[in-house]
């Protein structure tokens, strides 16, 4: 009984951790899908949403939680669209590495804007987090907090919504066409600018949601807060297969299980090396299945 309980509890922990990674990874893969761009600034969009919410609360306008969340997500979306217009559109069609470096520069740019104007000191996010999220449920011997349930629910809902979007709507189908072959999509009369902006808007909005939920879970925000979730989402997306939404989510849950497993089975003296093992896992997956578990093999065109 005790052992079974332990397994169920750890499974729930892994699912909640995996859901947080899944939220970040979905947005990342959205953008990667159409542009083949590894967007380093994705984590910074999370941070932008959190700081927007933080400052809205600090102004003391009593906007109400819901409108604060909407504004924060909108701001992240706008920053994402602006990013695409100013930095990524001029380098569209350049090599993968060049676009990756551009996004790296954009990331450093945004982070340091916040270091400069909002100070690098971490701030508490507790004032924004509604109290019911912090409630910890005790179901028999199982322990799970509301925030983890919310994150799990949001991740699954968003995945279903996005899968419906890319398979059932015209815009979504043109998005998949663009991701298949940008040039051919353009020749077929698809307005790829609109498709790419849409992908960025959706990706950034999801980053905003992910950022706020991440901060609510951790309890504090700082200008560099996006870096760790971004790296984890990279690993998740690579494990599952960059370029496939379902793959990214699968990768995120596998990563969640791997981390919980490592915490459970590593000797205490090695448990602080957990993230090192996570990246070792990344390198091993890249070796065995460079395109991830659900990723399709990308043919190189001569």
């Amino acid at each position, binding site marked *: 009984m005790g052992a079974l309980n332990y397994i169920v509890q750890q499974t729930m922990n892994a699912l909640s951790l995996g859901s947080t990674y899944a939220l970040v990874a979905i947005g990342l893969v959205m953008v990667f899908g159409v542009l083949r761009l590894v967007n380093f600034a994705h984590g910074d969009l999370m941070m932008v949403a959190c700081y927007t919410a933080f400052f809205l609360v600090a102004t003391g306008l009593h906007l109400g939680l819901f409108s604060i969340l909407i504004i924060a997500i909108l701001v992240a979306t706008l920053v994402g669209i602006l990013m695409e217009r100013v930095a990524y559109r*001029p380098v569209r069609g350049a090599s993968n590495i060049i676009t990756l*470096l551009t996004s790296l520069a954009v990331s450093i740019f945004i982070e340091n804007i916040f270091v400069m104007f909002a100070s690098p000191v971490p701030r508490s996010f507790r004032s924004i987090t509604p109290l019911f999220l912090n409630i910890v449920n005790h179901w028999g011997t199982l322990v799970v907090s509301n925030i983890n349930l919310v994150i799990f629910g949001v991740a699954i809902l968003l995945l279903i919504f996005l899968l419906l979007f890319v398979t059932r709507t015209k815009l979504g189908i043109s998005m998949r066409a663009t991701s298949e072959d940008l040039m051919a999509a353009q020749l077929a009369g698809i307005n790829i600018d609109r498709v790419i902006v849409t992908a960025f808007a959706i990706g950034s909005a999801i980053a905003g949601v992910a950022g706020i939920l991440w901060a609510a879970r951790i309890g504090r925000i700082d200008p560099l807060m996006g870096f760790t979730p971004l790296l984890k989402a990279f690993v998740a997306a690579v494990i599952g297969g960059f370029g496939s939404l379902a793959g990214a989510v699968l990768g995120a849950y596998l990563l969640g299980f791997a981390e919980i497993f490592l915490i459970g089975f590593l000797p205490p003296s090695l448990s602080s090396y957990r993230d090192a093992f996570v990246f070792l896992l990344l390198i091993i997956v890249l070796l065995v299945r460079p395109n991830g578990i659900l990723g399709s093999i990308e043919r190189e065109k001569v």
Partner: protein
Amino acid sequence: MSNINQKSLKNFISLLELLGISSILMLALAVLGLKNPYLMRVAILVGINIILVVALNLSNGFTGIFSLGHVGFMAIGAYTSSILTLTVATKSTNLPSLPIWLAHTQFGFLPALLIAGSLAALIALLIGFPLMRLSGNYVAVATLGFLVIIHIVLINWEQFTRGARTFSGVIQYTTLWWVYIWILITIYVVWRIVHSHYGRALLAVRDDPIAAQTMGVSILRSRLLAFVVSAFLSAVGGGLMAHFLTSFSPATFYFTATFNYIIILIIGGLGSISGSVLGATLVTLLTELLRNFEQSIRLYGLSQIILAAALVLIIIFYPKGLIGYREINWLQLLKLGSTKGTNNNSERR
């Protein structure tokens, strides 16, 4: 036959030019530094950055596989060489739980640098073997993963590294002379590799991997050589940096440093040694100026913002960097300046 000789002679002259320009540069900086200790520090920093960026260029510019993890090799070099050169007394206070064979020995600067470089080269060989098969985004993300692993190990391996705390008490061995000699070695080694048959294979693979493979060029071997040598030189650069700063922490060798070296590399031009020398000089001086400005107006983060914006602008408007794949041909420049007409004639024949 004379054609081949002429070509190799031309190549040799371009090497001499490179070494000469770097020497003149370092001499100029040394003269400035004689009067002012601050300028001397800047000169040494310029020199170390030249070594690091030329080493990075060997891997990232000439092979087409883009590593974001070279600062990890730098960290290995810095920590390894510093642990080796610490005096026995400093070791007993700063790193009390070192194994006995390490605690009671003290190495000279050169052997410490060479051991540090060899260790990094060995690790590069181990991780390079799998990584060199990947391409594009995947190498970048995987090498970033390597950097994170190194960072986590440095923070947690307190017995050797003092963890996240500052590693201090390192003797300031690094002088402009040490840096200068390593610049010459670095440029010579990188130049030799790029102009060897390995180098030609590298360029072929970089420009068109499929065509190169069709012609029977082995991608793995040439890339691995470039990666390992580049790791060795990066570690030496890290060792020089450690014995210049005298105190540092794992955060010194992490994401910010990675970004700075990549900016220099891109601004100077991927695949150009003279571009790296020029880029390292310009960007280091600029960063130093910006940092002073930033401190005087208390707007921390400004220098990073300007560098990031500069990188985006350079990528958009000068996608090949300031120099591109070419090398600066100084003699040609001089000739063009004085006798433009005759030069053109001789080329036409």
